[in-house]
Structures are given as C-alpha cells and as structure tokens.
C-alpha cells in the first residue's frame, strides 16, 4: 500500500486516495473543433511510461482535493506531489508532458 503525500493533508495511506490516471491531459478548449483522431487521442491514448509518470490523485477520504504527483512506475516511489494546476519541481520530461 502506497504512502501518499497529499499537498493538503500530508502523508496518508493509499486507501484514502483514488488514482485518476495520467496528469496534464487537458480537455480541449473547444472539443467540437477537434478532429476524430485528436479527440480519440485525448480520450484514450496515454503515456504509460516505464519510469517517472505524472499522474492525478484525489484524496477521496480526506480533504477531497485532486492533486498531481510524479511517481516512478518501476519502483513505485513518489518523486513529489503538487497541487492541481501547478508544475512539478522536478525536471523530468514526463513532468513537462
């Protein structure tokens, strides 16, 4: 069970959280203007990296806030967590994706 550093509440066990998948997949401003291919990529295509992954979590059974995290998908170690809308301190390529 992971130990996750909620930006609001601090370290809490994973069972209080829900993972929301890849972070920084912004919903297009005007979806109707997006072509089928791009729209399907927005909906379905994910980085799924072996290594550092920017992903979203919500502290479901805590403060109820969504936030972002960088986590290594091989070791499951968290690099950092940071608020929604924020940028990570780390400078991995994935973090900027």
């Amino acid at each position, binding site marked *: 069970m992971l130990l996750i550093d909620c930006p609001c509440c601090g370290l809490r066990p994973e069972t209080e959280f829900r993972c929301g998948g890849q972070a920084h997949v912004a919903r297009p401003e005007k979806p109707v203007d997006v072509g089928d291919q791009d729209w399907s990529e927005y909906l*379905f*295509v994910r*980085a*799924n*990296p072996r290594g550092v992954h920017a992903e979203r979590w919500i502290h479901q059974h805590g403060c109820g806030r969504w936030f972002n995290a960088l986590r290594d998908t091989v*070791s499951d170690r968290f690099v950092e967590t940071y608020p929604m809308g924020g940028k990570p301190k780390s400078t991995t390529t994935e973090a900027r994706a």
Partner: protein
Amino acid sequence: MRRFSYRSLISEALNAHQGWQRQWRAPDPKPSYDVVIVGGGGHGLATAYYLASQHGITNVAVIEKGWIGGGNTGRNTTIIRSNYLYDESAGIYEHALKLWEGLSQELNYNVMFSQRGVLMLAHNVHDVQSFKRHVYANRLNGIDNEWLSTEECKAFCPPINISQDIRYPVMGGALQRRAGTARHDAVAWGYARGADSRGVDIIQNCEVKGIRRDASGAAVGVETTRGYIGAKRIGVVAAGNTSVVMQMAGVRMPLESYPLQALVSEPVKPCFPCVVMSNAVHAYLSQSDKGELVIGAGTDQYVSYSQQGGLHITNHTLDAICEMFPQFTRMKMLRSWGGVVDVTPDRSPIIGRTPVQNLFVNCGWGTGGFKATPGSGHVFAHTLATGEPHKINAPFTLDRFRTGRLIDEAAAAAVAH
C-alpha cells in the same frame, strides 16, 4: 523433435532419462528474419508456432527479454472460458477454446486443459439480467453457457453457501461446462517446443532496445541487447510492456499497465471441483491439480511495472473469497505475486496493423489474456503472414478508438439503478 509417448517415456525410464533432448534450442540470433516476434510469452510463442505450422513461415525469431513464459503467462490464474457477450469477443475466445480442446495432442505436450466448468455467480437482480443476456447470446453464437438456479449452483459446486442470509446471497449462476483451467507454464513450453522444432529461433535474455525504421517510415528491424536483428515484419506481443516497445517506433497506444495480483493457498486434497467467479464481490477461485486454491485479485489502481501490488488488494480479495466460502479462513496463503497487465479503454484487445508499416501489434488483453492464447496466436500469425487480419481479429483494430466502434465487455456489466 522427439515425440512424447508412453513408449518414449518408458524407454527413457529404463535409460535413467539420459536421452531426452532440449525442448527448445538456445540459438544466437541471425542477422535477419522474415518475422521477428517481440515477446516470448504464450501469445508470442503461439504466434510463432502457427506461423510455422499453418503458414510455412519458419524463418522466425521470438525475442524475449527474460525467460519465456515469465510474464503474465506464468503469473495468471489460468482460467479459460469463451462465454463473452459480444459477437466479436465470443468469436475470438471461442476460437481459442476450440484450439484448447485439442492443444495437448496438437503440441504433443500435456497442457492439462481441464474442462471443469466455470461458474459465474449472480448476487443481485442486475447480475441475473446480465448473465442471462450472456447465456442467450452465447447460445445463438454456438457457445455453451447455461443458467443454473441457486440450488443447481450448489449441486454443481457443493462448497458454495446458498443461505439467503449472507451479505451477497447467490441468486443463480451462469455455467460454461467446456470452460476450465490449464497448466500455464506448459502452454509456453509446449508452443516453444513446437515452434522450435519447426525452425523458429527462440532467443531468451534478449531485450529490444529500439525499432529501426527506414526512410519511408517502415519498420525494418529491432535493436536488441544482442545486436541488431532485421525483420520483414515485426509483431509486438509484449503485454504489459507494449506501450514501452511501441514508443520505440513512435506509436503511442491507448493502453495503461496495472499490477494484477494473484495468490495460492497451501495444497490440500480435492475440495473444490470447478472455477467460481463472482463479479459482485470481485473474486475468483479454483483448485489446481497440485491441490492449491488459486485465487485472483483485482488490479491496483495505478500504473505500475513493478509486478507488485498492495496488501489491501489481496486482503479484499480474500475477504470476498471467505465471505463466499467461510470454511476457508483456516487455509493459508502460500505465495502471492503480481503481473503487469495492459488494459485498453474498452477492455478488449488490439490485434492488427499499426500506423507503422510492417509493424503489427497484439496487446491489450488486460486481465484475461491467458484464455485466448491459442486463438490470439492463431489469428495474429495469419495477420503477420498475410498482412491482413483474420476475420476473427478484424474488429479488434487500433482504429476503433477513433470511430467509436468499441467492444466494451466491461461496460456491458455496468451497474446502476
């Protein structure tokens, strides 16, 4: 290949078993092949076997970064069934089931396919509706699946508790009698032996580090830890690592890789006659030939390649098993482990062409790929041999995520009301 038979076994018994050959060779890679298959799991090895046996294409290499069958092939709970709802899924899983039925004889390798029946328990009205929908659809597709009353469930699987006072009472079940289990490792080894004997090179401890493309963008070979290997066609069958491999060719996939855990108990004398699955409580259970209770858990919630999940997932699965079978609380967990499963948005596989010429992919089997192994290999071999999908895998395109023509078995079991 020396055939296995009673005669060969007895004669070797008298010879202290000194005469058995290697079941597959350990060749060095050749400079190039007609087909290179990336991934030496059950699906990749089956693909190679059928390329050789059905299409006469034997200049084939299977490239495996570890040891063959060491990924999800050797980590799953070995459930085999074909009672899927949609025509497309029913088509491929039934194709596989038919191949399973003759597989030991075809491969001359006992994969211990045991048609002990898979019983899916219904715990609420919604389950009943959903399972009957499956039963009827299966019947019209020529797939055996029958509805059992609560009492019939008990008769088929006596350990089931049919008291109506438990948390999730049993309201009946859907039984596929032809479904069952098999010996997972033997599937990989049997296909490897069969493919090898037809000339396929199985190259272990060889990791793909890159996919080389020519000026036109077409794939022409793979860079590996054992050097460059040219290929007229490349089939990627890398399960949980598919995103990583496809990224080497610049193809981004609609996949996410999750840890999937399973466990076995200590071995005990026969006490559980079939496979029981319950969607409502998220658990499935069978007993292996060795006597271990084999129990599947759910996936963890996050992307991970660690082949390790959290204890809470295991615990919740055992909660569910012991809720259904309270007599098992004194059984002991002997071994638990994790695999990495690649999951598509509609929980159905992708088998076919990619945007890169000569590069083909077979992935996205999620938590249920083992059962499809022979069928998947068979149709993917056809696809690699002809460049065109077999009619059975034609619906499982990458393009369906653009058109919206999804094959959503999971959604079909959605619950609300």
